[in-house]
């Protein structure tokens, strides 16, 4: 096991200002283990008193080698690893990888499976924004927000457990459809949630939105202009709070999003308060989508019929010989994908989450690359933070909503 290397200022000479080399400003390490870095992120701050002059992020403390490990597994078995990347948005990660696989092997998804996927992904978006709200409040010392948000999240995790058996890493969305049909208690659980949630959002807004302390700490902090955001590749609520109306659910609809009626909140100020307002409004819009999808839920199969690529349901295996042979072949050897590449993107709670998949004619992928939104969203942090205090850095870092599993993969 290697020792921690002593860091000298020579390594960062090209990144810090000249005043640091003479000792006039101080280099402070906000280390990998820190209560408000939202994961293992190391920030090197060059400080002049309390004011931040430069900020150098150091990532890689959670590097898991997922992309190389997925090359050693077949397409179905590799899906398990996608859950664990952005652990707040597990259904979304599954969906982006599965959509890429389905496009590569050209398999259609039945309409009931599409509607179920939309319901679960939007519930996951609500759960992710609730954790953001809770930890954001915790960073700014509003501790009761944390307890309130986790109370709602428990209800959503109960729905996930009802459907798939697991609270977080479900792997429920699989190539060709979903794993199995939802049980009868699903509808009642989702409708109970839809009934109580709007009043809860109003409670959170009453607590925070017009609070003078909150406004003091959030307004005019961390400006992100439109050109900087586009040049750095920022997507998601951070881009929409800077004035660009780009949401992949409206621009390139997938999984039947064009049938649902919802708005995309866009603001122009580009500061931390604008990002907060955009996300609160997205909570309400996601709830609208869940309600419409629940009302329109069509009947039908939940898995595609193409048995060369999609395993048959367990009930068929006992009665049909071809089903047994297909099941055996798909789970031992896997299906062969064409020798081509696909780039398929969805809108995750953090931005554009895409899977770049290249097949080589065999059962294992040649290259899987996951384009994760938090990587580019973090790269713009040094621009946003220049000239602010260290306490503002904490507020800005929590408003861009990063997840380290996304960044380090």
């Amino acid at each position: 096991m290697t020792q921690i290397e002593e860091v000298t200022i020579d390594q960062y000479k090209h990144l810090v200002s000249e005043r640091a080399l003479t000792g006039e400003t101080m280099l402070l390490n906000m280390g990998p283990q820190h209560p408000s870095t939202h994961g293992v992120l190391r920030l090197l701050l060059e400080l002049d008193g309390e004011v931040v002059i430069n900020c150098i992020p150091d990532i890689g403390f959670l590097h898991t080698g997922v992309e190389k490990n997925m090359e050693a597994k077949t397409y179905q078995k590799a899906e398990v690893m996608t859950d664990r990347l952005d652990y707040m948005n597990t259904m979304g990660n599954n969906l982006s990888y599965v959509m890429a696989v389905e496009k590569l092997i050209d398999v259609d998804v039945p309409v009931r499976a599409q509607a179920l996927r939309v319901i679960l992904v939007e519930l996951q978006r609500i759960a992710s924004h609730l954790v953001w709200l809770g930890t954001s409040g915790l960073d700014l010392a509003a501790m009761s927000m944390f307890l309130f948000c986790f109370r709602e999240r428990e209800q959503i995790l109960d729905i996930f457990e009802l459907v798939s058996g697991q609270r977080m890493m479900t792997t429920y969305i699989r190539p060709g459809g979903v794993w199995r049909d939802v049980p009868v208690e699903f509808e009642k659980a989702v409708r109970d949630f839809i009934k109580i949630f709007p009043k809860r959002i109003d409670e959170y807004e009453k607590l925070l939105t017009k609070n003078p302390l909150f406004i003091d700490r959030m307004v005019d902090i961390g400006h992100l202009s439109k050109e900087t955001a586009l040049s750095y590749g920022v997507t998601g609520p951070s881009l929409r709070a800077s004035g660009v109306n780009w949401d992949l659910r409206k621009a390139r609809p997938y999984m039947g999003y064009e049938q649902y009626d919802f708005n995309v909140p866009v603001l122009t100020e580009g500061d931390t308060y604008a990002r907060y307002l955009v996300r609160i409004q997205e909570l309400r819009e996601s709830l609208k989508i869940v309600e419409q999808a629940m009302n329109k839920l069509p009947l039908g199969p939940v898995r595609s019929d193409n048995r060369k690529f999609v395993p048959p349901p367990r009930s068929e295996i006992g009665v049909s010989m071809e089903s047994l042979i297909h099941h055996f072949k798909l789970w031992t050897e896997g299906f062969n994908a064409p020798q081509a590449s696909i780039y398929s993107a969805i809108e995750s709670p953090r931005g554009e989450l895409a899977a770049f998949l290249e097949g080589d004619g065999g059962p294992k992928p040649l290259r899987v690359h996951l384009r994760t939104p938090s990587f580019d969203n973090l790269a713009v942090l040094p621009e946003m933070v220049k000239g602010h205090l260290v306490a503002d850095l904490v507020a800005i870092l929590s408003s861009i909503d990063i997840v380290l599993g996304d960044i380090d993969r």
Partner: protein
Amino acid sequence: MDKSLEPIVKKLQEKFGATYEEFRGEAHCFVRPEQIVDALMCLRDEHQFELLSAQTAVDYHPQNAPRFHVIYQLTSLAQNLSVQLRVPVNGDQLKVPTATRVFKSANWREREISDMFGIEFEGHPDPRRILMPDDTEGHPLRKDFPLGYEEPQFSFNFDEIDLRKPYVKE
């Protein structure tokens, strides 16, 4: 391919001699390494492709010419189009000019590609390793780098693996 993408691809073919392939509605254009910065600037300024969505690389190991393809995925928000540029890189000449002048998001993305694959980007302002520790030897995502797979401990080989594992103070 989208109707409005065809004139853009034709322009790339004329100006840079790019070849292109199409698969399930996506357009992949092959560009030579020396021309990539000009191609990116032409797409950003004249055709409004403002967002560099992704930049990554693929390793085709047993084949040496080309051994890698560096991939740039560009998105245009105004016209709602996207195009993919691929740069083939030979195994003995691993240098590509940097795209940081054109898109700032290329800064970290190119650091990741040079860390994982060993491709050098000329003119990059900050060429340090980004994801692996600084003293790593080798480049993990190449096909000849081993996976580092460790044998799982079942009951038949429990004791022999137990003796080999480097436990601490136990």
